[in-house]
């Protein structure tokens, strides 16, 4: 904390306070809750990838959609396609997991939340972080966070497929509880995806003259409104996808059996 | 002792100071900016409404002549007409120039600078940014200084080669060589170390004197330093009796009493009501304004949508009228619970519109008073806001009577006459800041040789005194008593016996101030700083009180209970303040106001001038009109 370049060393010292923070509120609560929430998602996701009961006509579990391997039951295959042949022996969910996973991993909100709760950098405002050195996202590997917008494109595709899945379910089982859970999930996933900062940038954020692009400006205004709710949408869609996924699996496993399941 | 040599030293880093410094530097002069606060914190940030400039962007009928007329009318014809003329003519250029330096004003539909209505201005005229125009102005000028420094860094390798900011540095004395200015002595607030500037030209841009009053919208810096420094250097002040009390300051909570509620609240539809719910301003329209203001609520309300066919609401009368009206309502027992009146915008505009148009007012009331102005009315009352009086200067160059001394902005006098229109202050800063900077540069160019400073030791000894004394007066107590005295006895409404009483108290306080002691070290010692500032506040307060006692009429920012009328005879007279040779007090002499140039006075109707001018002057007017 001392500087050697100072013209007068007395002047160049920070106030000496040997405590990490003087905050008196429960500043640790938010990072602790975030940590718990994100951990539950990771653990659930890990289990779901290896769980095989991801399809029960007409529902497909969101974690495993689109199903693109020959190991997928024919009804589960996306548009009937199976580009990955018998040689592919791993769970089909792994094939597509990278897109939504990467989208969330590089999402500006999730970055904030895990930098704070996992890496404690910083755990809360005006609470010292425990690391000796810090370079942030200025070099590898974290500089890779800048590819967020590609994951956004990918996430759009996944969002569209989940919407398609929900519509299929609606067509085949309009009265099913699962159908409506999938629809709710698709809506949340799509709004979360569209509320993304990269999306906001692409619509018109990159322009300096909104007035010359009235349509794009309107899109930007709409996305900006969603973007203000990016954090709640991130959490809502994270839980909705977990709930929808678990629900389909429980139906597939025969745990949930009531008539309108 | 630290010593620096400059061509021009500008004291004060508000709008006027920065604009002066920019001009001096652009003319190739090595310029120092010395300010008591950090760079960019000056009181100019508090200005909310806007900068008046007759650009005619919103109403193309507007031009400099209309602006000139409004300014003279607002000042009750006591203005230095040459200043009012220059101001009206040059303000648009000064505003446009800011835009080229990066300012982002609110826009009209066709992309020009938007202009808003304000009290006393006939057309929408105030260039603004929401209600934080002052901040925009100061930031733009600050960034212009930085841009010049970047230029100098490229050219000379040193960003501070031609313009340097000495922040948190207070000037206590101007230093002279014979009759002429030779420099200044100051101290660093941070260390308490003294610093000498060698400079043939000094521009005063120190702002006002509000800290001599308890209820004021002014910040701690406003201790009348420039006014006092000018007097101590032998210059003269004019119009010191004219102090503007802004009609709408916050009255609650006590700690923020006096903080401004912008006039835009009224310009955008806010109305004043007393405890009986009456829009009382209709009862207070003076005769001179009768034909310009609405007489019914219906007409006033129509004006917001159709300004061409309706007269404006009386809430937008000049500030002195509104302040007196509020004062009268409160005195008559029709005030609000905390001693003000109600300013209501909540029933007049939808909540979203209020937060869009008046964001910082919404914020200020929410955070400081826990009042949501979209739901309930504000309580407001008059607050000491601006001094029209100041250093007597030459209109074209800002030069004071002491060679090498210049002044611009609030510290200079004359431009606003007896009352300043809202919005004319920001444009005043720009127009006369630039002129004073240019005037100083030209003065330096014309000097045969640089002056040498004298009196450094005496000035230093004077400043250090409170620190060396032990067991003296508490400067905070002296200050507090001065504030109460001025507020109660030389406030909005004045009486001869009260002013005399105030002068007696000031005499006693002067003695006590000579004996103040500040405990602690020289490093950032606020008690010591206040003890030094007290000298200035006392000199200025005495000047205000003495001038107020002499002027036996009521005009603009000077209302005498014992002389309620406006007198054409007094309009011809200016009160000139100077320091007695032993520096123990001030004395006042009368000076005749020069007659307005023929082409300017012809801009007015005879019927209007009859309310202000003497018969002799009207005869001159008739001659001027016949000639043209």
């Amino acid at each position, binding site marked *: 904390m001392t500087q050697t370049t100072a013209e007068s060393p007395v002047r160049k010292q920070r106030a000496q306070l040997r405590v990490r923070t003087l905050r008196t509120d429960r500043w640790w609560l938010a990072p602790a809750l975030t940590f718990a929430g994100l951990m539950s998602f990771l653990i659930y996701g890990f289990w779901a990838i290896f769980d095989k009961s991801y399809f029960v006509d007409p529902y497909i579990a969101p974690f495993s959609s689109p199903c693109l391997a020959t190991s997928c039951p024919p009804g589960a295959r996306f548009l009937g396609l199976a580009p990955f042949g018998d040689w592919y022996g791993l769970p089909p969910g792994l094939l597509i997991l990278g897109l939504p996973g990467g989208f969330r991993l590089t999402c500006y909100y999730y970055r904030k939340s895990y930098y704070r709760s996992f890496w404690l950098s910083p755990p809360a405002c005006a609470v010292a972080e425990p690391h000796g050195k810090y370079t942030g996202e200025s070099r590898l590997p974290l*500089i890779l966070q800048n590819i967020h917008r590609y994951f956004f494109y990918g996430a759009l595709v996944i969002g569209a497929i989940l919407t398609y899945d929900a519509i299929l379910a609606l067509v085949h089982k309009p009265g099913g509880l699962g159908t409506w859970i999938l629809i709710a999930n698709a809506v949340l996933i799509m709004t979360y995806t569209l509320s993304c900062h990269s999306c906001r940038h692409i619509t018109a954020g990159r322009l300096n003259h909104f007035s010359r692009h009235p349509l794009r*400006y309107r899109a930007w205004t709409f996305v900006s409104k969603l973007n203000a709710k990016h954090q709640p949408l991130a959490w809502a869609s994270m839980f909705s996808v977990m709930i929808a996924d678990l629900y389909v699996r429980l139906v597939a496993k025969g745990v949930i059996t009531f008539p309108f399941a | 002792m630290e010593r620096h040599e400059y061509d021009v030293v500008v004291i004060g880093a508000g709008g006027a100071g920065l604009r002066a410094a920019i001009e001096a530097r652009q003319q190739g002069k090595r310029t120092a900016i010395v300010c008591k606060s950090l*760079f960019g*914190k000056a009181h100019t940030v508090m200005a909310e409404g806007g900068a008046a400039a007759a650009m005619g962007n919103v109403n193309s009928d507007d031009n400099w002549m209309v602006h000139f007329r409004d300014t003279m009318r607002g000042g009750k014809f006591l203005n230095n007409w040459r200043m009012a003329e220059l101001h009206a003519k040059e303000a648009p250029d000064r505003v*446009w120039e800011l835009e*080229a330096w990066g300012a982002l004003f609110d826009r009209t539909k066709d992309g020009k600078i938007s202009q808003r209505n304000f009290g006393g201005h006939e057309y929408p005229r105030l260039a603004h940014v929401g209600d934080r125009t002052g*901040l925009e102005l100061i930031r733009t000028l600050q960034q212009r200084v930085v841009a010049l420094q970047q230029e100098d860094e490229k050219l000379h390798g040193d960003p501070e080669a031609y313009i340097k900011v000495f922040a948190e540095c207070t000037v206590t004395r101007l230093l002279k060589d014979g009759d002429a200015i030779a420099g200044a002595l100051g101290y660093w607030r941070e260390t308490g170390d003294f610093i000498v500037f060698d400079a043939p030209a000094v521009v005063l841009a120190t702002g006002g004197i509000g800290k001599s009053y308890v209820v004021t919208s002014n910040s701690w810096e406003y201790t009348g330093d420039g006014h006092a420094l000018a007097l101590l250097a032998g210059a003269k002040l004019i119009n010191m009796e004219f102090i503007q009390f802004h009609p709408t300051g916050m009255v609650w909570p006590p700690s*923020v009493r006096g903080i401004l509620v912008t006039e835009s609240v009224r310009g955008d539809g806010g109305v004043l009501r007393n405890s009986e719910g009456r829009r009382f301003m209709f009862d207070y329209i003076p005769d001179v304004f009768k034909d310009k203001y609405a007489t019914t609520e219906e007409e006033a309300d129509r004006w917001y949508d159709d300004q061409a066919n309706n007269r404006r609401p009386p809430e937008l009368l000049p500030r002195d009228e509104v302040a007196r009206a509020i004062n009268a309502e409160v005195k008559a027992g029709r005030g609000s619970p905390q001693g003000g009146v109600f300013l209501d915008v909540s029933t007049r505009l939808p909540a979203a519109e209020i937060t869009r148009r008046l964001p910082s007012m919404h914020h200020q009331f929410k955070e400081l008073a826990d009042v949501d102005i979209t739901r309930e009315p504000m309580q407001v009352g008059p607050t000491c806001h601006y001094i029209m009086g100041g250093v007597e200067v030459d209109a074209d160059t800002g030069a004071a009577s002491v060679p090498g001394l210049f002044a611009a902005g609030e510290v200079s006098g004359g431009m606003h006459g007896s009352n300043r229109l809202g919005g004319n202050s920001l444009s005043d800063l720009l127009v006369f800041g630039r002129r004073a900077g240019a005037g100083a540069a030209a003065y330096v160019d014309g000097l045969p040789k640089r002056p040498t400073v004298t009196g450094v030791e005496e000035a230093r000894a004077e400043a250090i005194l409170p620190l060396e004394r032990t067991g003296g007066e508490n400067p905070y107590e002296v200050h507090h008593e001065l504030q109460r005295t001025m507020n109660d006895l030389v406030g909005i409404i004045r009486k001869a016996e009260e002013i005399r009483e105030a002068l007696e108290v000031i005499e006693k306080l002067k003695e006590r101030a000579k004996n103040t002691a500040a405990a602690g070290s020289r490093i950032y010692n606020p008690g010591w700083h206040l003890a030094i500032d007290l000298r200035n506040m006392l000199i200025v307060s005495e000047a205000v009180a003495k001038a107020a006692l002499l002027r036996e009429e009521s005009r603009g920012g000077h209302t005498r209970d014992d002389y309620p009328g406006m007198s054409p005879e007094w309009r011809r007279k200016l009160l000139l303040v100077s320091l007695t040779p032993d520096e123990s007090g001030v004395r006042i002499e009368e000076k005749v106001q020069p007659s307005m140039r023929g082409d300017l006075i012809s801009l007015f109707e005879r019927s209007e001038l009859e309310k202000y001018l003497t018969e002799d002057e009207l005869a001159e007017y008739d001659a001027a009109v016949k000639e043209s």
Partner: protein
Amino acid sequence: MGYKAKFRIWRGEGGEGRLEDFTVEVNEGEVVLDVIHRLQATQAPDLAVRWNCKAGKCGSCSMEINGRPRLGCMTRMSTFEETETITVTPMRTFPVIKDLVTDVSFNYQKAREIPSFTPPSDVKPGEYRMQQVDVERSQEFRKCIECFMCQNVCHVIRDHEENKQAFAGPRFLMRIAELDMHPYDVLERKESAQEDHGLGYCNITKCCTEVCPEHIKITDNALIPMKERVVDRKYDPLVWLGSKIFKRSS
């Protein structure tokens, strides 16, 4: 309605110092700065505090109250319990001069490192035509009162003095965004935001936004959009390819 409040205030000069206890009267409607002024007037005349407008408009009285960066003039005493001890310390990130006054020259240094507004040379004053929607984004950033609390709270420099060289801090990265979004600014600023001013150090943990007394959405509206603009310029092969093709065809 007054009561006696317990205050602990950091006092000292040039780094050396300690927390000192005071008991001081508090009246209804007061803010922390009022209480500090009362201490000055009654108990500690040389207690140093920087302040100016007392209305949350100048950004001078930045300090840390119970460990959180706040403006002293905008922190109402009614937000505390009467029994609570209120701790007031100077901003941590900057060297302390005395008591609550810190040396914020770092910020003025950084301000000077950002190239100024650069309009096209052929537009004269008075000829600027801008639409309201085009200036609104930059106007939000110009609400900044330069209290420097975002600079103070940002862990990049708060916890890592050594990063002060490379990192301009939220306030000045926002200044870059303001200029980059200005309809008339012609300077290329994206590259230098990343290379010279340390935009990459920001890990968008949003403390700057949390402490901003003007409620400017520094992270969402300035820093992230700026990061995205940098991606356009430096990390997006599609945009790069597109601009190559476009340049060639035009």
